[in-house]
């Protein structure tokens, strides 16, 4: 069976008005996702994770260009679709949840209106039918008294409730893929736990494939089957979550895991990563991580490492992994 989503060597560049500067925000990114599976995309700000998510929906800002690659979704390359065809994918087959629910909801329309909108647009539902369905959707995201809530406006709700409304809009047309970009960063801890459980329930009930865009490895540990770690626009490591936590192949992943405080061994000194994430407009030569890498060798300064398979389904982009593997390429 072919995967639900398959991305091949995707490159997205930001170009300045005069075309003098090119930022490779997403560079040679490949991954695939099966139906019902959860993939975490982890990275720091500027690593390209949000650009990657937006490119799946072809919602990139005007300065961005698709430079290379293919995005196969349900057997079609999304990059070859017309705008009209793409509109039928967006919100219907692929939906997205953004970080700040107040920014994704329109303050001037009732919640019911906004949950019903995609149903009216994509499924030609009648006003009445869409409204009834909106009530049902609010119930499915566990909003108490949905019949009363549909008539309310976003400002009358708490942050956690707003984010659940956004979730209800996301699943309204029964998409196959839901992309969640830092969906719980603005929520309190106990509300975050509620929301993550809700997403998991919705995923099970609808057989959704989920992509979690996050900087938080804890969310990955809790929610995801597989994870892709991004650094400076590239996926530097990808594989099953457990394997990556147990045996990270890339020094960046390893350093990230070691730099995070854990509840169990408090007051241990953290292993800090020196330096700071690079400027995409002036990437270092060779491997982009080499200036911060504790184990960099000469080759890392000159030549970008290829993808290597370190274990079944587990890839790393590092010269050390190449050498450990006897030079076998993926």
């Amino acid at each position, binding site marked *: 069976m072919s995967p639900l989503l398959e991305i091949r060597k995707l490159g997205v560049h930001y170009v300045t008005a005069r075309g003098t500067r090119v930022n490779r925000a997403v560079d040679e990114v490949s991954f695939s996702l099966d139906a019902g599976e959860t993939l975490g995309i982890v990275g720091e700000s500027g690593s390209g994770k949000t650009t990657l998510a937006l490119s799946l929906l072809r919602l990139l800002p005007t300065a961005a260009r698709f430079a290379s690659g293919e995005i196969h979704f349900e057997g079609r390359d999304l990059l070859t679709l017309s705008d009209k065809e793409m509109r039928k994918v967006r919100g219907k087959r692929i939906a997205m949840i953004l970080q700040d629910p107040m920014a994704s909801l329109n303050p001037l329309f009732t919640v019911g209106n906004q949950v019903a909108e995609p149903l009216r647009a994509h499924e030609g539902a009648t006003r009445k039918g869409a409204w009834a369905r909106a009530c049902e959707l609010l119930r499915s995201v566990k909003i108490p008294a949905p019949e009363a809530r549909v008539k309310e406006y976003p400002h009358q709700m708490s942050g956690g409730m707003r984010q659940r409304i956004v979730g209800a809009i996301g699943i309204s047309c029964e998409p196959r893929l839901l992309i969640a970009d830092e969906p719980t960063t603005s929520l*309190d*801890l*106990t509300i975050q*736990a509620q929301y993550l459980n809700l997403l998991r329930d919705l995923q099970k009930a609808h057989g959704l494939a989920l992509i979690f865009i996050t900087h*938080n490895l804890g969310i990955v540990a809790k929610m995801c089957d597989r994870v892709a770690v991004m650094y400076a626009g590239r996926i530097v490591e990808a594989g099953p979550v457990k394997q990556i*936590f147990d045996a990270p192949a890339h020094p960046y992943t390893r350093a990230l895991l070691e730099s995070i405080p854990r509840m169990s061994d408090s*007051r241990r000194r*953290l292993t800090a*990563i020196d330096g700071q994430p690079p400027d995409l407009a002036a990437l270092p030569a060779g491997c982009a991580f080499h200036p911060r890498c504790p184990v960099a060798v000469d080759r890392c300064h000159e030549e970008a490492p290829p993808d290597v398979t370190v274990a079944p389904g587990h890839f790393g982009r590092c010269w050390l992994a190449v050498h450990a593997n006897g030079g076998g390429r993926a």
Partner: protein
Amino acid sequence: MTTPVVEARRLSKLFPVKGGFLGRSAGVVRAVDDVSFTIEQGQTLGLVGESGCGKTTTSKLVLGLEEPTGGSIRFEGQDLQELDAAGRRHYRKSVQAVFQDPFASLNPRMRVGAIIAEPLVTNESLPDSDVRKRIAQLLELTGLPERSADLFPHEFSGGQRQRIAIARALALSPRLIVLDEPVSALDVSIRAQILNLLRDLQAQLGLSYLFIAHDLAAVAHMSHTIAVMYLGRLVELGEAGELSRAPKHPYTKALFSAALPSHPDERREEIILPGEVPSPLRPPSGCRFHPRCPEAMARCSTEEPQLRPLEGRVVACHLFN
């Protein structure tokens, strides 16, 4: 035993809410209600809780930015209310703060040297050469290159800006620094640098911290003692390691069970609380947590539990009476 740096006793802060007809008072928000804690010299008190629990108001009370409505704060044994003008000045110099967003807390039009020196210039009359020496010292202490003094904040990354904010907080050699979410605005790979720096400075200078953060693992990592607040009340307070390993109060349990795992195999008992934090304008009767509490009893809705000592910590819950 040495006197604690800060001792808060039965502290409360009420905010009247204006509203209704002709701005008549519509009630009060008990932002901080009967909260007591101590911060020992060279130690860190971690303060956790969700939005609206009173963490920020507590930190403002400690910083002297708000006057308490009830209770008292003692600084090195001295009641703040009894301080004269000179004592008050000394207090303000001894208690400094580092905030969450180093992009908002540094003036973009001032050079870093001037930012760091500002507390010195306004509080002490030092000759220029001494100020310059102190700036160089502070930059070194916080791991910034010496030439930073002549640059502007926009020339620095988030992590470096937070170092500048820390250097400024250290300028007057304070005894206590209030750290309000000091790393949550920073990139993940930078956070450890700043947490380590804060720990090193504490060891080197004998500083005390009041550490406020959402990330429970970071709080457990940094703190000697942890205080948990819910809707303005202190619900549990105890030694950091024990409290995070074996929380007693049902709210603390739920809060720590909601913390994200550090490994996919780490499975802890998951307690998902129903509902959301109620409005502090109309807190529930009895124990404020009872409508969401999985272990609530009849008594919880009528009688407010008091903090009682329990196995080396204090807990406010009827379960332990």
